[in-house]
């Protein structure tokens, strides 16, 4: 059964330097506040897994928490580049960044395999592309019935998987709705898991399109109102599109970025 703890306790007890950590939320319900807490606790040498690294990974990379990134699309959605991600790959600043790169479908299936307790998943993809050559977690596999050549992708089982959700009840059952993306699979693939939530309520009244994750599948739940900003939580607040656009200028320059992080993240309480 999930323990209900504070966000800072959760990151302190569940995440170690050198861990593989997945932070999921496909454009919606991105666990931003967990990322801030990881930065405040100056975790090091992390392998971050995320389909769309987004601002959360840009910040963790720029602050030197990340030595490897497993991803499938590393941009600022609708805006352009992630400048901290680019600076790390192109110039090794603040640290060199190793990458393990997939398509969305490929990384999705790595999570599905991880959630299913299998060492790999099978898919139609990669053949003829450059990723097929450069990515070691992709391999040929042949159908034992038809002989057809397909691709296997290696399962991913993060040490810790973090997602953000709208609500939990007092037993730690979690409810999310709207675009629910890859969150369930990412959570189930994790050896440990943390769900940050907008609020804890007495009763999770059913909602159309909701996904309810029982407490017994979760390690810890932490309350973190606004924990997705500048991403959004359907029913709670909207996506701050202006901030995504503003991030381009903030993150483009190393000093401006460090100053912003100091003022807005490092000095903030969790």
């Amino acid at each position, binding site marked *: 059964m999930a323990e209900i703890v504070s966000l800072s306790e959760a990151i302190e007890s569940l995440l170690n330097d050198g861990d593989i950590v997945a932070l999921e939320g*496909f*454009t*919606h319900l991105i666990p931003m506040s967990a990322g801030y807490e990881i930065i405040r606790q100056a975790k090091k040498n992390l392998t971050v897994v995320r*389909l*769309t690294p987004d601002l959360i990974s840009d910040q963790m990379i720029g602050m030197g928490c990340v030595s490897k990134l497993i*991803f*499938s*699309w*590393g*941009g600022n*959605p*609708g*805006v352009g*580049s*992630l400048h901290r*991600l*680019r600076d790390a*790959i*192109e110039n090794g600043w603040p640290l060199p960044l190793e990458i393990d*790169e*997939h*398509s*969305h*479908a490929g990384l*999705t*299936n790595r*999570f*599905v395999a991880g959630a299913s307790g299998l060492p790999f998943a099978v*898919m*139609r*993809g*990669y*053949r*003829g*592309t*450059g*990723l097929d050559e*450069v990515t070691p977690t992709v391999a040929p596999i042949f159908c034992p019935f038809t002989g*057809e*050549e*397909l691709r296997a992708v290696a399962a991913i089982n993060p040490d810790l998987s973090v997602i953000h959700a709208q609500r939990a009840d007092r037993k730690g059952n979690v409810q999310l709705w*709207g*675009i*629910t*993306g*890859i969150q*369930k*699979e990412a959570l189930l693939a994790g050896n440990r898991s943390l769900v940050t939530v907008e609020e804890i309520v007495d009763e999770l009244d059913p909602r159309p*399109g909701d996904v309810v994750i029982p407490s017994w599948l979760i390690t810890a739940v932490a309350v973190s109102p606004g924990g997705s900003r500048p*991403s*959004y939580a*359907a029913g709670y607040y*909207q*996506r701050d*599109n202006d901030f*995504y656009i503003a991030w381009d200028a903030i993150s483009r320059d190393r000093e401006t970025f460090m100053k912003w992080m100091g003022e807005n993240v490092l000095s903030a309480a969790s």
Partner: protein
Amino acid sequence: MMSIAAARQLKDNQICFIGIGLPSKAANLARRLHAPELVMIYESGTLGAKPSKLPLSIGDGELAETADSIVSVPEIFNYLLQPGRIDVGFLGAAQIDRYANLNSTVIGDYRKPTVRLPGAGGAPEIAGACKRVIIMLRQSPKSFVEKLSFVTSVGFGSGPSDRDAFGLKGAGPVIVITDLGMLEPDPVTKELILTHIHPNIEVEKVIESTGWNLKIANQLRVTEPPTKRELEAIRSLVAAGA
């Protein structure tokens, strides 16, 4: 002109896999013109979204609120895209070659890139599995290149037999729409041929903007200019804001 030309490619009731930017603009334009029942699918999991304005990201709240249904990302890729259920996929890229292969990964060497681009996202499987693929890309010698820095998505590989060899189910790219004209694959060789130039564009301009020795169709046509109705629709879409 690019989004109007792309919108014209769409038919009513088609199922379209949409990315943000030009594709989203083109599909939403088609929906306001001749294809009111176009089914728009965003890779975030929204099926049949009907946004009133152009979304900034594929996760914008309005896409979810107006969707017929929302499914998980594994369902989008494994149950809907991979089996070839999508009629039309849109793709953009940083680079394209003469066989409509696309690069959105890096410029320069993969291990030591000059420019690191966002990467593959949904593109390789959209290119592989949609029944038809429409590519939208501004034309310049830097984007229309002899050799890609990296093959992110396969158009026709190195020629007409590669899609079959790679087990790709869809027909592949059917048209490349640029700011200067439109290219279509030769039915036999699959090399991209310039078939249309947009109004007031010189053929020389198109040739100069292509990094390979561009072939021109025997019957090169001029793209039909935007109609009044098309221009009004695009203005109202842009006015509704991002």
